[in-house]
């Protein structure tokens, strides 16, 4: 009953007209920057931080939190409509979401993303309310060895992302890993593969890679074939989700929510991994995995729920321990300190209205996102009927601005163009760009944690097997690998036998 009393306190604090206004403002701004590539929630929150000095602390936090999950929602919109992931977490949504749009089901995809996110957000908020402190303590036990094994598990699941050739998926993932190596060596500080170009010392920018691989490459392919040069979708079936689709999507939403809620609590990459993990799960449990990559609704419903749940539960380490799990959380801590609030375990005790008010506002923010975005679906979808010759210059323009504004540097625009060329070649060779991006995102984390674990163990490789959580994840990775490889091996044996006969 404590929980209900606390939530009542929270809703009492969050449901003032001022707080509602700023929750709306935050989600609105967040959705907007999520739709625009290049401008991420980090930059936006940093710029708006001074504006919040004059606001009451709870109001300020409500607005900043709204920007954060608004951005992750807005990112999915562009992923579905124009094959452009606005945020790291929506890379996966591109795979099936954009295919749905091509089939004229963009409205359904957007609708499922919105409702899935709402459901996941509500559940994750409950998780925070009920279990935040013990979960945070659990997340703290994750050392470098555990993170390494988690990343191995993530990488193995990258293979499941591919539809079609397993070999191609592996090769493309390896290419992504190699690209992730570019930049400064984490242990010695020596520049690797930077070819004396200073801009490459920090590695290749995520924004530039995604713009190139997804947007530019897609445009090049589209312009090539006359059939795809028309509007993205001539006929649009329905805007609203139907009952059979709902029945298909709902279990995926449930699974995605569970995956996201768990992975979100781990600082550093947990929330990003959750969308990838959820897609893998969906593909594994599906009766007919071949539908994935061709517009499977579960491929949108699962990852979208997972990334929103992950975004929500990533508040746990920040709220309970004062440890930021990503850059936005670090800024929120900055905002709290400006208001003389020391983030950490004391917040729940000393300022319960603030703690529970923020939790309640997540709920309110999620509802607002849906209220805000469902009417927009009709408008977004109409965008798809715009002739492609008008649409693609706009996409190129927006992407170029996005690539430039990530670091205010022209270099990233050239990088984006180079990756556009690479992406075109990959698509021509029937290779998927998504596993490449996963390799590129996970590679540096994998290396970083592997080497840190080895520094901490003074070079003893057995740490990965003697720590139970790490061992469990490595075993899971091995099992998944066996599961993926078994059919391939069996098939080859079948063909071998067939040839003998």
């Amino acid at each position, binding site marked *: 009953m404590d929980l209900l009393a606390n939530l009542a306190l929270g809703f009492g604090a969050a449901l003032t007209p001022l707080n509602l206004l700023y929750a709306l403002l935050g989600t609105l701004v967040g959705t907007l920057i999520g739709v625009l590539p290049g401008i991420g929630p*980090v*930059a936006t*929150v*940093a*710029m708006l*931080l*001074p504006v919040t000095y004059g606001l009451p602390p709870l109001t300020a936090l409500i607005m900043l939190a709204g920007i954060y999950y608004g951005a992750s929602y807005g990112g999915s919109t562009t992923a579905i409509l124009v094959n452009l992931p606005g945020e790291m977490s929506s890379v996966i949504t591109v795979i099936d979401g954009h295919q749905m749009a091509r089939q004229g089901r963009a409205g359904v995809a957007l609708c499922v993303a919105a409702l899935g996110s709402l459901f996941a957000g509500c559940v994750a908020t409950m998780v925070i309310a009920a279990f935040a402190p013990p979960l945070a303590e659990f997340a*703290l*036990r994750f*050392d*470098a060895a555990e993170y390494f094994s988690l990343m191995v598990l993530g990488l193995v699941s990258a293979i499941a992302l591919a539809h079609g050739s397993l070999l191609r998926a592996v090769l493309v993932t390896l290419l992504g890993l190699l690209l992730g190596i570019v930049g*400064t*060596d*984490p*242990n*010695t*500080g*020596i*520049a690797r593969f*930077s070819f*004396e170009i*200073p*801009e490459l*010392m*920090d590695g290749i920018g995520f924004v530039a890679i995604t713009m190139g691989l997804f947007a530019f490459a897609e445009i090049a392919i589209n312009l090539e074939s006359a059939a795809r040069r028309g509007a993205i979708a001539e006929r649009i079936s329905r805007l609203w989700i139907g009952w059979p689709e709902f029945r298909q999507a709902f279990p995926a939403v449930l699974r995605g929510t569970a995956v996201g809620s768990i992975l979100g609590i781990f*600082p*550093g990459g947990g929330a990003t991994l959750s969308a990838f993990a959820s897609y893998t799960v969906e593909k594994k449990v599906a009766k007919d995995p071949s539908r994935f990559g061709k517009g499977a609704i579960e491929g949108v419903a699962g990852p979208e729920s997972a990334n929103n749940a992950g975004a929500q539960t990533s508040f746990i*380490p920040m709220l309970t*321990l*004062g*440890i*930021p799990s990503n*850059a936005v959380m*670090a*800024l929120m*801590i*900055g905002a709290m*300190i400006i208001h*003389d609030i*020391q*983030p*950490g*375990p*004391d917040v729940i005790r000393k300022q319960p209205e603030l703690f529970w008010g923020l939790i309640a506002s997540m709920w309110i923010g999620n509802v607002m996102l849906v209220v805000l975005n469902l009417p927009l679906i009709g408008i977004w979808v109409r965008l798809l009927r715009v002739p492609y010759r008008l649409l693609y210059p706009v996409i190129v323009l927006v992407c170029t601005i996005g690539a430039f504004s990530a*670091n*205010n*540097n022209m270099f990233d625009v050239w990088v984006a163009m180079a990756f556009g060329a690479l992406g075109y070649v990959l698509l021509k060779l029937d290779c998927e760009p998504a596993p490449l991006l996963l390799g590129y995102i996970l590679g540096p984390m994998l290396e*970083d944690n592997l080497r*840190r674990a080895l*520094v*901490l163990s*003074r070079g003893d490789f057995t740490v990965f097997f003697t720590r139970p959580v790490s061992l469990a994840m490595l075993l899971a990775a091995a099992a998944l690998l066996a599961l993926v490889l078994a059919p391939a091996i069996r098939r080859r044996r079948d063909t071998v036998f067939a040839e003998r006969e």
Partner: protein
Amino acid sequence: MERGWRSTMQRWCLGVAMLACAAAALAQTYPSKPIRMIVPWPPGGGVDTAARLISQPLSERLGQPIVIENRPGVAGNLGTAQFTKEPADGYTLLMGSLSPNAVNPHLYSKLGFDPVKDFEFVALMYYVPSFLVVPANSPANSAKDLVEMARKNPGKLNFGSGGVGSSQHLFGVMFNTAAKIDAVHVTYKGTAPAEAALVAGQIDYMIDPPTALPFVTSGRMKALAVASKQRSVSLPDVPTLDEVGIPGVYTSTFYGIMAPAGTPKPIVDRLNKEINAILQTPDMQARLAKASAQSHNWSPQEFADFVKGEIERYREIVRLSGAKQVD
């Protein structure tokens, strides 16, 4: 043709005349258009915070907007190098700081700028000390305990940092050298993950800027000493390292406004006067105290001498850290 040439000539003369007038009237009319402030880091970090803290009150005093431009990359080098190529007219300023302006000259062989010759040092904003922090459950309750622990187990203890050549790394080397202990350096990607690892007890100690203070007040970390000449206003009970017999470890992570070399002196002086006046306001002083930050009301010359002293000091520290020179 003739006519065209003459009009070009006329325009050219006019231009020269205007430039001359402009230079004379500079001190009175500056600033007459918006000012850009380059932050060579992404939004949200310490340097960005310093820039956003000063930009609002400074633009009110100057009567022109100040636009902050984030140009991150290579530990501040990219944006700083680009900044030094901007015109020296007072309309482009830099939020300078320890890493690019005093440490990186010793870390990078191709810096793209000269840390002394390419700058006019306008005004120090403030500097912050760092603290020797350990996890809450650490057996060490004083700096002396920690040093004893480290001496009994040479090479067994781990100290963390936000990366090779980061301030925590160099401060850790300074501390280890002064305390004559041997410990292993563990890198993290930034300060926040390193602090999380310390809270979880995965590393043994760290010389950390005031970002660690919330963890100390919430009881997740213990602050054993402060690495500065005076005790910190935020934690007055914590002794300095000098007091506990580990002398000479002074960490002052500074933030200050700089202009490209050749910026007219009247402009530099005007900016220095306004910035110092802002820093002396009670509201600003209260904010600085909260962050353990110290301002000094220094002249441009005093600020320049301070930075030059830091550049010299870090030459040896970088060498001791073993961080390699990179292109």
